[in-house]
C-alpha cells in the first residue's frame, strides 16, 4: 500500500513540476501548498486512527453504533477543518505580503473560495474512504492504520495538487 501511495503522490508531484512557474505567480497558494497537503493528510491520519482505536475498543460494533461514531467524528473534524482552513488562508496571505505580493480584495476572496473548495471536497472523500475501507479492512482482520493511512494521505496530496491546478485555471485563467 505504501508503494502504491508513493506512485500516486509522484504523479501529483509531476503535475506540480508542470505548473511550477504558474504556482509561483500565485504566491499565497504556493506558500499554502505544503501546509494544505499536510493538513489533508492529518485529517486522514486522525480519522483512520480514531476509527481503528474505536474498533479495537468495541469489537464488531452494530451498524447503528458505527453510524453514531461516524456522525460524531464527522462533526468534530468538520469544525476543526473549518477553523484550520480559515487560519491557513489568513496566515498565507499575511506571509505573502512579506514577499511584496500585491493583494487585492478580489484575489483574497478567490483564494478563500479556492482553498475552501479544495479542503472540503477532499475532506468528504477522505472521510468516506476512512469509514468504508476502514470497516472493510477490519472485517478482513487487517490493520486499518497500515492500509489506510498511506492511502488517505496520498489521495489527499494528489487531490490537493490536481484540484488546485484546475481551480487556478478556472479562477485566474493561468
Amino acid at each position, binding site marked *: 500500500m*505504501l*508503494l502504491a*501511495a*508513493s*506512485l500516486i*503522490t*509522484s*504523479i*501529483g*508531484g*509531476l503535475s*506540480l*513540476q508542470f505548473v*511550477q512557474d504558474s504556482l*509561483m505567480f500565485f504566491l499565497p497558494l*504556493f*506558500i*499554502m*501548498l*505544503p*501546509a494544505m*497537503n*499536510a*493538513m489533508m*493528510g*492529518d*485529517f486522514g*491520519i*486522525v480519522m*483512520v*486512527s*480514531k476509527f*481503528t*482505536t474505536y474498533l*479495537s*475498543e468495541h469489537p464488531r460494533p452494530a451498524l447503528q453504533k458505527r453510524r453514531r461514531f461516524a456522525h*460524531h467524528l464527522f*462533526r*468534530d*473534524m468538520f*469544525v*476543526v477543518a473549518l*477553523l*484550520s482552513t480559515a*487560519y*491557513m488562508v489568513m*496566515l*498565507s496571505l499575511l*506571509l505573502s505580503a*512579506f*514577499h511584496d505580493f500585491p493583494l487585492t480584495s478580489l484575489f483574497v476572496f478567490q483564494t478563500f473560495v479556492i482553498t475552501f473548495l479544495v479542503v472540503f471536497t477532499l475532506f468528504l472523500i477522505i472521510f468516506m474512504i476512512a469509514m468504508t475501507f476502514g470497516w472493510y479492512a477490519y472485517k478482513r482482520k487487517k*490493520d486499518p*492504520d*497500515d492500509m489506510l*493511512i*498511506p492511502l488517505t*494521505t*496520498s489521495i489527499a*496530496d494528489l487531490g490537493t*495538487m490536481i484540484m488546485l491546478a484546475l481551480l487556478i485555471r478556472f479562477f485566474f485563467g493561468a
Partner: protein
Amino acid sequence: MRVLGKTKKRIDKDIVEELSADLVALTVGLVGGFFLVQITGDISLIPGILVLLPGYLEMHGNLLGSLAGRLSVALHTRKIPRRFAWNRMMHDNVAATFFLGVVVALVLGIIAYILTLLVFGWARPAIIAVALAALVISLIVEIPLTIIATYVIFQRGYDPDDIMGPYVTTLGDFIGIFALLITFWVMV
C-alpha cells in the same frame, strides 16, 4: 443524560486537542512554505526534485503516522505498559518502519527519475541517492521523537490519535526538508 453529558465533554475535548495540534502544525507548515519559496531556486538545480518532494514529505507522515497509530492502539488496549519499556513489539515496529522507509525512498527516487526522464527528458540518477540518504538521516531522528511523543501524550491523559497525526506530519515536513537540504548540499 449523564452519559450524554460525558459524551459531549469528550467530543469538545477531542475538538480542542485536534484543533490545537492542527493550528501548530499549520503554522510550522506555512513558515516552511514561506522558506520553500526562498529556496526554490536552489533545489530546482536537481531536475525532478519537485516530482520527488510531495511523495518524500508525505512518506514521513505515512510511516510515522502508522507507527504512532499502532502504539496508540497498543496503549489504549493495554497490550503494552503505560511506562516506556523497550520490548519485542517496540523492536518489531521500529525495524519495520525503518525497513519500509528505505524501500519506499528507493522506489520514490526511481519513480521520480523515470518520470522526469520520460516526461521532461532530464536524466539525473543523483535524485535516487538524495532520496535514500535524506530519509535515513531523518528517520534516525524522527522515530525516537515519535515514540517519546506518543507515550508522553498518552501519559498526560490526551488521546494520541487526536494529536499525533498533525505532530508527525509537521515533524516529517520540518526534519525531512532539513535532511533533504543537508543531503543536497553534501552530495550535489
